[in-house]
């Protein structure tokens, strides 16, 4: 049920490929009254997070020397604030590493002060 002071916000869950359509009702104090439409608990969590402080995982590449390919795919170890995604990409464009690298190796320790590290998502053996 929804009382007459509530404002409804719509989100689309990106937690998994199902893409649940979420609705978040907020009262006039900005507190969440109700979350509808999620198929799982993860969806509820996503709705709350997305409503208050949207965050994203970043997957991109950094330069690598001495490997089979010139780019190494990387990801953030956890989500960073959505509005810092482009800055994070920009920062990662300046990074170069040297092969060999193993999947899971930390490439950047603390990305833009988010406390998030950036790790390699594949092995890149050195080419001899």
């Amino acid at each position, binding site marked *: 049920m929804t009382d007459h002071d509530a404002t409804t916000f719509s989100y689309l869950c990106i937690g998994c490929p199902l893409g649940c*359509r979420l609705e978040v009702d907020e009262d006039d104090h900005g507190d969440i009254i109700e979350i509808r439409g999620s198929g799982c608990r993860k969806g509820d969590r996503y709705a709350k997070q997305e409503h208050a402080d949207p965050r994203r995982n970043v997957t991109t590449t950094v330069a690598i020397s001495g490997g089979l390919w010139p*780019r190494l795919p990387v990801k953030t170890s956890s989500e960073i604030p*959505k509005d810092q995604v482009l800055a994070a990409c920009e920062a990662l464009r300046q990074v170069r590493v040297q092969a060999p690298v193993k*999947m899971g190796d930390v490439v950047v320790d603390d990305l833009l002060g988010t406390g998030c590290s950036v790790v390699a*998502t594949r092995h890149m053996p050195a080419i001899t």
Partner: protein
Amino acid sequence: MIDDRPHVLHSKYDVVVAGGGPAGLGAAMAARTAGAERVLVVDREAEAGGILLQCIHSGFGLHHLGEELTGPEYAQRILQSALDDGVDVLTNAYLLDIDNDQNLKLLSTDHGLSILDTRATVLAMGARERTRAAIRIPGGRPAGIFTAGAAQRLVNLNGVLPGRRVVILGSGDIGLIMARRLAMEGVEVAGVFELMPHANGLSRNIVQCVHDFDVPLHLSTTVVEIHGRNRIDKVTVAPVDDHLKPILSKAWDVPCDTLLVSVGLIPENELSRELRLRLDPTTSGPIVSSTMETSRDGVFACGNVVHIHDLVDFVSAEAELAGGHAGRFASGIRPPHDNVRLQPGANVAYCVPHTVTTDQPHTVYLRVRKPLEKSMLRLRDSEGAVVHERRLRYVVPAEMVTLKLRPGVLDGFQGDSLLVEVVAR
């Protein structure tokens, strides 16, 4: 990528798998589990893993492995498992032909041209992308027109950029993923244009690839002409009417130096055609039984070579089935023949597998033609009587529908074909 020992090629195998992506590796492992001794995967690239290696984004494995991985992570996980299971992987290799006695003609960098003998074969060559020519966009033929997947490889593996200002035609997942990828690399994405009134990719990708990066998404709009002599310099786009015909009086030009075409995938069926397998005209892939066997004895198929999946997890599940049966076939074990044909009915484009048995559990994958908010999946017999039904949430063509037929569901069913429909409740 993981194993760099010199490869030893045998002349006889129990199972040979064409393609070292998630489908092929999954099938190979399942064949081993089912008791096949010698299982060989041949992959055309320098590294096995398939297209996942260039899909550096996350979203893989949630169903199948219980965690969300990036493409390269998923690829390496299954490659490592396959190697641990004793699967033999040969890269830089290409299966040229299979004759009627299951003699394979193989061309590989390590061994040159070889003829192998195998008991069973699994086709897992994946898919190719539809091109600009396939959708017949008129105009010039300048440089700068790429399929989205080709651009993805250039950006993520070769370390170059396709251009400075990009138009993306088609809202398939690869196109959406590339919109984000290019935006992240500082390339201007002038817009994503989709012919249909709904986006073709997963909903999550509309949010995190298009909305997050303020990329304009134009539905019911398409590219009607390509301009430019040496390099593309603009495209003309136009809205379409209810019959998908462009309304040229409302057309406008979008300056760009690159056009990415993301208008769908087609099963890689060169080999399937060469083998004269029976193909499904809707999927363009081979017609398969509930054991994923094609119209040719001992030739199985799985993954995008059969039909286009939207999640690798479903590919892996299908691969387990195909590989398991290929492994058993190699040991001389054959399950009873299917006795029911599945026929696409109202709002169903296709079903895979094409036949099932009444006494075994089956997972049937199907794709709807049109989106529906609240729908009902029904199986009807030839008289029109409902044999089984299940409520579905909203369905869209971009998202595959999975129907689990548990044992007992078809108990007592006497007919030889079932009509599958997805209709409004």
